[in-house]
């Protein structure tokens, strides 16, 4: 049965997928500038500033009279783009490291895993902060920071199944017909260790969203007047008591996106590894 059919049979995976599809629609809208108002357009008239949600401005306006909904949509483009790119980098890099390490074994494996242990000694946000301090703040400097945080996780996840695949009969068989080691690695070991990587990919997207939003919130991501969910929350702090919608909607956008990837990841785990059902 193809994966998508299994996903649709799993309740949490289906809900997660629906949420993600909604975000993808928002992403496309934002990318093609299909928003109720231009996201950075200011409306200096007092009547348009700090307006509560209503007919014209569905999610209200901020202190510059900018439409919150349009800025949330625009923020979707930024957040999803950064998170997808950085997690994809981490997944490719980490998976390669993990399967090679597990397959080769011996001293190389021990050494690599020890080095990865070092990365696990830092809280995600702190490691990301340290990397940002080295590359400097900036909208896309967040990408290496997040990639560094999640690469070790993928390496561990990808390595685990390799340890048993390494001595599987089909690997011995491949070797006995004279297949080269690197071909065995990519033909047999890699495809058979991808399931947990896929599960982790979805979960890592949810964690990375939180990291990205946190960095933006600290002002280390995109700079004003650009918009991202975390940055919007940061800017809302001074007006939150008089205009709570400024803090509510961007936060909701983060939470629902994280929820979507979490649900999908959980569902995928149930599908691929029924024994670890939570």
């Amino acid at each position, binding site marked *: 049965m193809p994966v998508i059919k299994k996903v649709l049979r799993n309740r949490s995976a289906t809900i997660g997928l629906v949420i993600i599809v909604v975000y993808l629609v928002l992403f496309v809208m934002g990318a093609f500038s299909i928003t109720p108002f231009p996201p950075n357009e200011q409306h200096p008239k007092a009547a348009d500033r700090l307006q509560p949600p209503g007919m014209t401005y569905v999610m209200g306006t901020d202190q510059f009279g900018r439409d919150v909904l349009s800025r949330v949509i625009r923020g979707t483009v930024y957040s999803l783009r950064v998170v997808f790119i950085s997690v994809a980098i981490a997944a490719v890099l980490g998976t390669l490291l993990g399967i090679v390490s597990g397959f080769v074994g011996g001293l190389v494996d021990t050494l690599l895993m020890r080095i990865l242990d*070092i990365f696990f000694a830092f809280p995600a946000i*702190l490691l990301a902060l340290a990397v940002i*301090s*080295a590359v400097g703040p900036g909208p896309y400097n967040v990408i290496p920071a997040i990639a560094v945080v999640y690469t070790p996780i993928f390496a561990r996840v990808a390595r685990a199944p390799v340890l048993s695949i390494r001595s599987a009969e089909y690997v011995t068989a491949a070797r006995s017909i004279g297949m080269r080691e690197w071909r065995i690695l990519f033909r047999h070991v890699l495809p058979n260790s991808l399931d947990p990587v896929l599960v982790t990919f979805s979960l890592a997207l949810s964690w990375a969203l939180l990291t990205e939003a946190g960095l933006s919130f600290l002002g280390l991501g995109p700079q004003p007047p650009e918009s991202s969910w975390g940055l919007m929350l940061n800017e809302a702090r001074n007006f939150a*008591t008089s205009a709570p919608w400024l803090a509510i909607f961007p936060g909701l956008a983060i939470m629902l996106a994280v929820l979507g990837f*979490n649900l999908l990841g959980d569902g995928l785990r149930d599908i691929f590894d029924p024994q*670890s059902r939570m």
Partner: protein
Amino acid sequence: MTSFIFRRILTFIPTLIGISILVFFVIRQIPGDAITAKLGAEGSGSLTPEQEAQYRAYFGLDKPLTQQYLDWIGGVFHGDFGISEVRREPVLVAIFKTFPLTLELAILALFMALVIGIPIGVLSATRPGSAIDFVGRAVSLLALSLPNFWMGTLIILLLSSVFHVLPDQGLYIPFFEDPLRNLGQLLFPAFTLGFAFSGSLMRTTRAVMLETLNQDYIRTARSKGLRDRAVFIQHALRNGLLPIITLAGIEMGYLLGGTVLVEQVFALPGIGRLTYTAILQRDYALVQGAVLFIAFNFVLINLLVDFLYSLADPRIAHAGD
């Protein structure tokens, strides 16, 4: 037992060295070194090359990198983490001024997470598939998805607009000086952090309980006529404690350095905010020292968890014998 602990400590030494190398070289990647940053900050770009060279020599920046690393780590071994240029005090002093707050915050948060997470997890596991279980799982999912800095913002919003109070901000008041004000400062931030962590705790507790409840000795305990409560708590939960201890330990390690966002939201002068400000102000010695301190803490807590683990399950200590 002693040899087990000794072995564990030995394996941690390379990790510690690795951490210090990583921290040192990442911070060294920062464009512009301490001298140019300092000159830029003081707006006196009129130094002659000779004076600049003197400065470099004074701070040891003219030496090869490996020598600089050895000098730095040698100092660390003597408790000398260098001087914070911005705060004009030793790095270690700055760390010890801010660390107690974060430590207390982390302990409170862990406590709240355990108090929220374990009962809900146990309750969920006792009636899998029931309405209680559904609610429990929904809460855990919510906890895992809520950004803690947003939750903190919402709490402040709620407190100020509904109850017209603001959490106590500003200088940290140690618990023993004024317990009430201290808790007033830390209660809400700790709840914010603790709730976020209770999600994974609920999940682990539930999974572990479900697994142990299927074991033969549970059936035996039941067939002896033991009450449900005794079975759940004395037999199932006790045996399920190991993964929970591990999770709590790891989380404690992360809490000691991962509180920067919540400290920022609640304006608390903890070590997370110290590090963040140091990064913004390019106070390299401080960044280096604080990051190293946090990572060392994490490793130390891991060691402690291993130790607790071997106490809870003696089989582990003898695994290698």
